[in-house]
């Protein structure tokens, strides 16, 4: 029997980026807010200390900062004809556990989606005709436009201290930035990071190929910076341990570096860590959330009543919570009806390894130190001849040169023996890679539901993931790989090795932790779980954050948009919902 606790105004499930921002915004207006985080508390010192954090084995190989499948994981299959089996180890994606969430261990690659991404259905039908869209693709508009989100993208960028160069200021194209980006109101808060050798070589080659390279927008500060919340940040020193590690000198944007100092000491905010929410409770009408049930580290269960419940856990975990709580109509892929679990998407990636004669010192890196070509993203080019929609960016990233996992070897290098050893010795310092980062659309056959067999440590059914790449993704990805190979060739390497993404989606090799969908946002309750303000259609005092709400996943890393949507929802809650609790829009 869960012990009932005194009520709070707001309960936040999880304590990553979205919860940290919401906690700050809602405590600003005097609400009593409690955040429940399943992992432990973590802070820069001692948890990400420069003295201990550069430990590839502990963090990148043995997953020191991530969730542990033995507590909860998901089951996976490519399609419904198969039996879903547990993802027993982390592989394809690495969700976090612990205060700060994935905001601790991300690289800091920070993007805005394109204006056309938000109206993907309308835009693509208009340009290419309805027949161009595959019948089983659940392509949808978001219900919010880029223009509406622009000030909130700006807020997140000024919260993080993004280092970059604007390409479009108020409609006017700017030299040195991304000519394809949506118009922005002002420059990035910080200038771009210093270049490293490989990005300079890539930049030259891309220009020779007639493309428009620019420095990647980076949540790694190029200078000391005082952010939107008045919190001081440091300056990135290119230690090369961003992704999968915490930052030890306050220069990678994270909830710890950007929000905690002005949030944690507040009287009206409480963080309870090592407390996992297992269910959202509702009253007898089913239309009102009354709070959540959570389990603490000893296994004791508690009920935390609240007037406003906001799901801020990682993408698929929000969907899991909705399903086990029975909120919203679960998606039925056979009939293509229902919404919870619908439109799961991911990212499709590939790369071209490039072997040069020059010393590149890959270990001097930063998570978002890179040069980008965006010419083939979104609808930045004519898709008519190609038979697919969407796209992705090409990037030469120099995130680091961690020897176990970040070495490149030429094609046909033996997997072991003296040949392997020789290839390691000859190529570690002199190789780089051009990555492609492609969109994934949503399909009838790609969805989340509850597994009938396997359970987590609380006895709840595991989430079941049914997902595969479709023709659109493969065609698009191959197209990007070919474009990347062209740039690689222009770098005049001693050899190169294109590595296209072939075959079925596999849960084994790491690709990205860009899981999206399952609690999609929109203006039609038949195809969305939350409305355009991220408010549940079924339960008006329940909101869902994060990439769970993406109807499909464009060709950019999701965090920038996750941040923007959080500020957008926070404003709606503060300015509209709190004054008049209830549905913020009608269907």
């Amino acid at each position: 029997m869960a012990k009932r606790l005194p009520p709070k105004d707001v309960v936040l499930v999880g304590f990553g980026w979205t919860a940290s921002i919401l906690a700050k915004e809602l405590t600003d207006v005097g609400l009593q807010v409690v955040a429940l985080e399943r992992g432990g508390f973590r802070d820069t010192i001692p948890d990400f200390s420069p003295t201990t954090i550069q430990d590839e084995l502990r963090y990148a190989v043995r997953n020191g900062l991530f969730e542990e499948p033995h507590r909860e994981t998901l089951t996976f299959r490519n399609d419904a004809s198969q039996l879903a089996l547990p993802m027993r180890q982390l592989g394809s994606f690495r969700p976090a556990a612990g205060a700060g969430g994935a905001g601790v261990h991300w690289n800091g690659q920070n993007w805005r989606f394109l204006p056309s991404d938000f109206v993907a259905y309308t835009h693509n039908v208009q340009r290419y005709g309805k027949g161009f869209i595959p019948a089983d693709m659940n392509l949808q508009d978001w219900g919010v436009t880029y223009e509406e989100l622009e000030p909130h993208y700006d807020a997140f960028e000024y919260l993080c201290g993004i280092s970059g160069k604007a390409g479009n200021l108020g409609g006017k194209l700017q030299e040195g930035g991304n000519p394809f980006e949506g118009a922005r109101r002002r420059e990035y808060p910080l200038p771009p990071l210093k270049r490293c050798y490989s990005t300079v070589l890539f930049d030259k080659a891309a220009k020779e190929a007639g493309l428009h390279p620019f420095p990647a927008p980076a949540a790694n500060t190029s200078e000391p910076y005082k952010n939107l919340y008045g919190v001081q940040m440091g300056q990135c020193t290119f230690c090369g341990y961003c992704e999968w590690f915490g930052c030890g000198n306050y220069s990678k944007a994270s909830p710890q570096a950007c929000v905690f100092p002005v949030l944690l000491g507040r009287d009206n905010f409480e963080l309870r860590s090592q407390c996992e929410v297992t269910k959202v409770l509702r009253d007898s009408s089913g239309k009102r959330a009354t709070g959540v049930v959570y389990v603490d580290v000893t296994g004791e269960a508690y009920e935390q009543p609240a007037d406003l419940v906001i799901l801020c856990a990682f993408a698929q975990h929000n969907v899991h919570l909705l399903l086990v709580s029975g909120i919203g109509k679960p998606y039925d892929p056979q009939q293509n009806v229902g919404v919870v679990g619908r439109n799961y998407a991911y990212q499709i990636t590939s790369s071209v390894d490039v072997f040069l004669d020059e010393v590149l010192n890959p270990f001097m890196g930063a998570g978002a130190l890179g040069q980008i070509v965006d010419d083939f993203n979104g609808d930045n080019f004519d898709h008519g001849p190609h038979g697919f929609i969407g796209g992705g960016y090409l990037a030469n990233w120099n995130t680091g040169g961690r020897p176990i996992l970040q070495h490149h070897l030429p094609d046909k290098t033996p997997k072991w023996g003296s040949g392997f050893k020789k290839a390691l010795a000859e190529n570690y310092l002199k190789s780089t890679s051009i990555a492609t980062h492609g969109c994934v659309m949503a399909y009838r056959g790609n969805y989340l539901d509850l597994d009938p067999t396997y359970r987590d440590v609380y006895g709840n059914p595991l989430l079941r993931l049914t997902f595969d790449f479709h023709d659109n993704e493969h065609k698009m990805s191959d197209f990007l790989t070919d474009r990347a190979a062209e740039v690689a060739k222009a770098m005049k390497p001693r050899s190169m090795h294109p590595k296209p993404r072939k075959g079925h989606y596999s849960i084994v090799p790491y690709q990205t932790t860009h899981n999206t969908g399952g609690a999609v946002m929109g203006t039609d309750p038949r195809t969305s779980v939350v409305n355009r303000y991220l408010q549940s259609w079924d339960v008006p005092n329940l909101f869902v954050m994060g990439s769970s709400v993406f109807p499909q996943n464009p060709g950019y890393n999701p965090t920038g948009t996750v941040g923007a949507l959080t500020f957008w929802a926070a404003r709606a809650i503060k300015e509209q919902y709190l004054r008049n609790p209830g549905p913020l829009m009608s269907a």
Partner: protein
Amino acid sequence: MARRKSLLFAAMGLALAAAPLAFAVDTDYGKVARGRYLVHAGDCAACHTDDEGKPFAGGRAVPTPFGTIYSTNITPDKETGIGNWTDEQFYKAMHEGMRPNGQHLYPAFPYPWFTKLSRDDVLAIKAYLDSLKPVKQAAKPPDLPWPLSVRESVAGWNTMFFKAGTFQPDAKKSAQWNRGAYLVEGLGHCGACHSPKNTLGGIKKKDRFEGGKGEGWFAVSLDGDRRSGLGDWTVDEIVEYLKTGANDRARAMGPMAEVVHNSTMYLTDSDLRAMATYLKGLPADGTDRNASVPAPDDDRMKRGRLVYADQCAGCHMQNGEGIAHVFPAIKGNTGAQAQDPTSLARLVLQGAHSAKTPAKPEGFAMPAFGWKLSNEDIADVLTYIRASWGNQAEPVKASKIADVRKMIAKSSG
């Protein structure tokens, strides 16, 4: 008669500007508020609060070179606190170090500094303490060896090192300087840590504020020496440091971070400015004669340079200039050039967190290196930083680092 309105009871930024020594007659309410401010200025909580849930109930172990003394209960509890003390008795304790029953207080309680307080200020402090929640908690007896365990022995100490007396303003100096002197030499009791003490724990007046040991750290000299003291600091920089916990040349760590957090961050700008003015008037004592620093190609410097590049440059940067507003520069740093490297050694061995203040809420911290660097490594890197980028301070021996390790182990064991 102007009523002095009471001001915010909020934790931050009391805007109370107490005129030096001459106060209008207050309502009790104003007196309590003023007392609260003065209790912050005196940092009474640093010794008299052990458990945050029982403020000023005492029981905190105060280490001295002679043994441990436990702070007393100064809540108004009638049995275990000072609830029964009269104004006169409280004044005598603060002014002369005497208890109502005639017993001496040990000078771990800084009455040699508090003696300077005006009677009005002392009674305002009492008014505030009287307003606190009484807590029943008996004081623990001190843990001192004989004959120090006999309180009468303090009489002898007082004869040698203490002279009671309220602060006398210097007519030749400005009102601001006098206010600063009143605070620094009185309630602030800065010299209790920042002065050298002899074997009996006494301080020579001429040596005051020349730097001293306190709580196992070395508190830097506050005099006018340009390397090891405040000679290069401006008044603005001193004010910013005390108010926010950091300025561009230094960040308060260790016990001083606590002082900022409990005490100086609550003081008014005007009082801080007065203290800074007073401190800037302290002359240099010549500690900064040319220290014998090793040549750049000395083995210690070569080894230290490599340790620095491996371990320190990530925050303090390869040029020793730190990161503006985040990590202090080591180049030109007062603490780095202190005549006694104990604090430096502690910072490297154990790391430290800085104070979180409203103006600077980040609390930037330094990690511990003691587990990964040997005594030789630490001695080499400290020698290196004390002789690089224009710094000039004596090299550090590995044996000193070993001693500091032992002291840390002993005090936490």
